[in-house]
């Protein structure tokens, strides 16, 4: 009976891989380019994961955890075991991945229709779903790391799906390389842990940490190393630069990978490994997350590309989750991960719907210059695209954290945890400031997006007649995900919209970190509970402030955005240009590195090659010439030919006595006999 969970998980893990293999080899020859293979595979995983979810709810056990594995490699002292781990977090995460992945598959049926690499696109989606499930189900660091890299690969492939565009190809490379920086940290962290504990299995690692096999600064460094992986994958400052560029990929990909699941992998991993982070490592995590949250939000305020706004919003929300992990309320982080997956995927699908409509309208007008993603070209779409509008509005309310919506519950839990953390350690007062500041900005820029896109007059009136609501393959996921962003799904059977209890929040029971000296889970929950009231009032206040400002500027147009922008001067400029991060990386990292490379290349080419390699060659050549001379003149000419010459000369001389005259021969015979007689005589 219990093995059903393991078996289902195996199906969920490998079905998308099967779809990938089938599509990559035979995709183009199948009817409809094989999209039904991928869609049916992922829908089947959705059914299975829903079944697991229901089974978990029916027989709820807070400590439920099952493992199954095998030894992959056994080299005596070095042993790698692979396996899968199913517990409550896994089951929820599998459901989230399957759900968003199904939505993306269905959404893409229309969005990607007629694409030149349609079947390959679906194949890569399958590969991604497989590797994401691999991360979720991993019970050891090595297979998690392998899936981690596979996720990075599929991300690269899908971002660069339209690789004919230089910007898409560059964005793919940027994502891959930036992730690599973090992944090296992850790998170092894994190796630090392995060298102390001698096992990759999570259970062994936690037991080893609890037993004090790895302590102090080493454990902190290992934790920070592992967190570096999360920083890369979850796009945390200062490795956040790849995610906004990753929006070059198709919009369903952005929704699936760069909003809901892949970027959440970093958060999921820190949640999974939460027990081994030391308080110092957690502090680093908290500050990185908090700073990312407010930093990215401040960029999102001024962006004009609808997907860029959402991208920076994703970075900011991921910062929230990381902040929550850092302050210890990692169940809140997980809660936010789930709610964020719903509303952010929905926002991306909504933006995809809008872009799709804009693109078609522009196409009708044969306008290929105007950017269909620029919000300054939009406006007044509410009447034309009602389903898109209402579903995006629900998600916007959710992400802003308005009561009655899912985001309120999860964001509130995070803010309460952060506030409690700062109340007990007042020197870290910056963390809640980051959190609440980011909350205000989030409310502001999300409503700015809604107002600029859907309200007011359309900025290009000639297009408005060609804009239509998207087909139901695209609106279906929108409606589904929007409805999942309403609070009731997370608070049943408690209908109080501002409660911090509900079935979902109680589903995942926090565990105490195994590091000696950490706060217990109970303490953290207790503090957070006490801070809840204050946090809630504060967050509602800042949200109202943010929304009000947005309404005044972009809806009522009481203040002009341009005037404010010019008043704020360099601040506006910095935000618009993303704080010049790409430029500064270029100037202070890439260019010096390239210069260094050039210098090293010069050393290599001009000094090493020229003097050492060529010098060596010269010596060898000289030596060869000497030995060649010796061989030819000495051995060949002297010895070999010499013997020949001696034989020849001897023969030549001996030939002279062969006169052919019998008398001479006879004379020799006589002489010989005389000599013999003389010799005999003595």
């Amino acid at each position, binding site marked *: 009976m219990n093995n059903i969970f393991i078996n289902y998980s195996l199906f969920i893990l490998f079905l998308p891989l099967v779809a990938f293999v089938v599509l990559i080899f035979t995709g183009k020859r199948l009817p409809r380019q094989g999209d039904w293979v991928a869609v049916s595979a992922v829908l089947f995983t959705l059914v299975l994961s829903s079944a697991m979810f229901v089974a978990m709810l029916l027989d709820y056990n807070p400590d439920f955890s099952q493992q199954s594995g095998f030894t992959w490699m056994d080299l005596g002292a070095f042993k790698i075991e692979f396996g899968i781990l199913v517990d409550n977090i896994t089951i929820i995460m599998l459901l989230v991945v399957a759900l968003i992945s199904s939505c993306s598959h269905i959404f893409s049926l229309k969005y990607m229709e007629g694409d030149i690499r349609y079947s390959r696109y679906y194949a890569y989606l399958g590969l991604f779903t497989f590797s994401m499930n691999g991360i979720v189900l991993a019970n050891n660091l090595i297979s998690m790391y392998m899936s981690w890299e596979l996720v990075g690969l599929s991300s690269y492939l899908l971002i660069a799906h339209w690789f004919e565009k230089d910007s898409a190809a560059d964005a793919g490379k940027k994502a891959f390389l930036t992730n690599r920086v973090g992944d090296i940290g992850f790998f170092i962290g894994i190796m630090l842990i392995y060298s102390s504990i001698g096992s990759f299995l999570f259970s062994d690692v936690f037991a080893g940490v609890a037993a004090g096999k790895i302590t102090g600064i080493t454990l902190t460094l290992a934790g920070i190393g592992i967190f570096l992986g999360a920083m890369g994958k979850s796009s945390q400052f200062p490795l956040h630069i790849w995610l906004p560029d990753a929006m070059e990929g198709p919009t369903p990909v952005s929704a699936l990978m760069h909003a809901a699941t892949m970027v959440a992998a970093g958060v999921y991993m820190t949640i999974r490994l939460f027990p081994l982070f030391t308080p110092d490592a957690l502090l680093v995590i908290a500050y990185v997350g908090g700073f990312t949250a407010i930093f990215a939000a401040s960029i999102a305020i001024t962006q004009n590309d609808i997907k860029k706004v959402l991208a920076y919003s994703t970075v900011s929300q991921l910062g929230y989750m990381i902040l929550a992990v850092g302050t210890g309320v990692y169940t809140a982080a997980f809660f936010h991960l789930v709610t964020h997956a719903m509303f952010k995927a929905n926002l991306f699908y909504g933006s995809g719907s809008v872009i799709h409509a804009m693109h078609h309208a522009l196409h009708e007008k044969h306008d290929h210059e105007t950017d269909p993603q620029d919000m300054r070209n939009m406006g007044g779409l509410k009447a034309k695209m009602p389903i898109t509008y209402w579903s995006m509005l629900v998600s916007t309310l959710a992400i802003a954290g308005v009561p009655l919506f899912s985001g309120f519950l999860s964001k509130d839990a995070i803010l309460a945890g952060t506030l409690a953390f700062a109340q007990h350690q007042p020197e870290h007062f910056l963390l809640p400031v980051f959190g609440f500041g980011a909350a205000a900005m989030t409310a502001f820029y999300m409503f700015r997006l809604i107002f600029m896109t859907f309200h007011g007059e359309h900025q290009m009136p000639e297009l408005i007649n060609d804009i239509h609501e998207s087909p139901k393959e695209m609106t279906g996921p929108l409606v589904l995900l929007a409805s999942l962003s309403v609070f009731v799904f997370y608070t049943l059977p408690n209908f109080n919209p501002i409660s911090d209890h509900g079935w979902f929040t109680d589903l995942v029971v926090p565990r105490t970190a195994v590091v000696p000296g950490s706060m217990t889970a109970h303490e953290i929950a207790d503090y957070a509970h006490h801070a809840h009231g204050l946090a809630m009032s504060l967050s509602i206040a800042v949200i109202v402030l943010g929304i009000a400002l947005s309404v005044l500027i972009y809806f009522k147009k009481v203040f002009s955005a341009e005037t404010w922008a010019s008043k704020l001067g360099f601040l506006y400029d910095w935000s618009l240009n993303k704080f010049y991060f790409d430029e500064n990386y270029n100037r202070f990292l890439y260019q010096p590195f390239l210069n260094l490379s050039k210098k090293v290349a010069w050393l290599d080419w001009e000094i090493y090659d020229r003097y050492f390699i060529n010098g060596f060659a010269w010596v060898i050549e000289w030596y060869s010439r000497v030995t060649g001379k010796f061989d030819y003149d000495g051995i060949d000419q002297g010895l070999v030919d010499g013997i020949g010459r001696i034989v020849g000369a001897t023969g030549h001389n001996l030939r002279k006595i062969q*006169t*052919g*005259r*019998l*008398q001479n021969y*006879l*004379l020799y015979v*006589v002489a010989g006999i005389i000599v013999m007689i003389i010799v005999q005589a003595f």
Partner: protein
Amino acid sequence: MDQLNSYLFIAAILFSLGVFGVITRRNGIAVLMGVELILNAANINFIAFSRFGGMNFDGHVFGLLVIVLAAAEAAVALAIIINIYNNMNTINVDQASQLKQ
């Protein structure tokens, strides 16, 4: 014994003269004559040993055999020389050197 020595001495002189003739003569006939002298020197030795060495008539038999042999040899050799003369107009053995390289 002195008598044997004197025969052997005469035979040796005869043999030496024969060899000298064979070696030094250019004329084919003279060479043949040298060969006859060598054969006859051998005959004298056979006879001498037969007479003084207690070998009964064995030596005589060999002597007669050698004489017959010498006759046959002279007949063949003279035929060769006549052919050489017919072909080269000379019986000088030095001239008969076509086989020499």
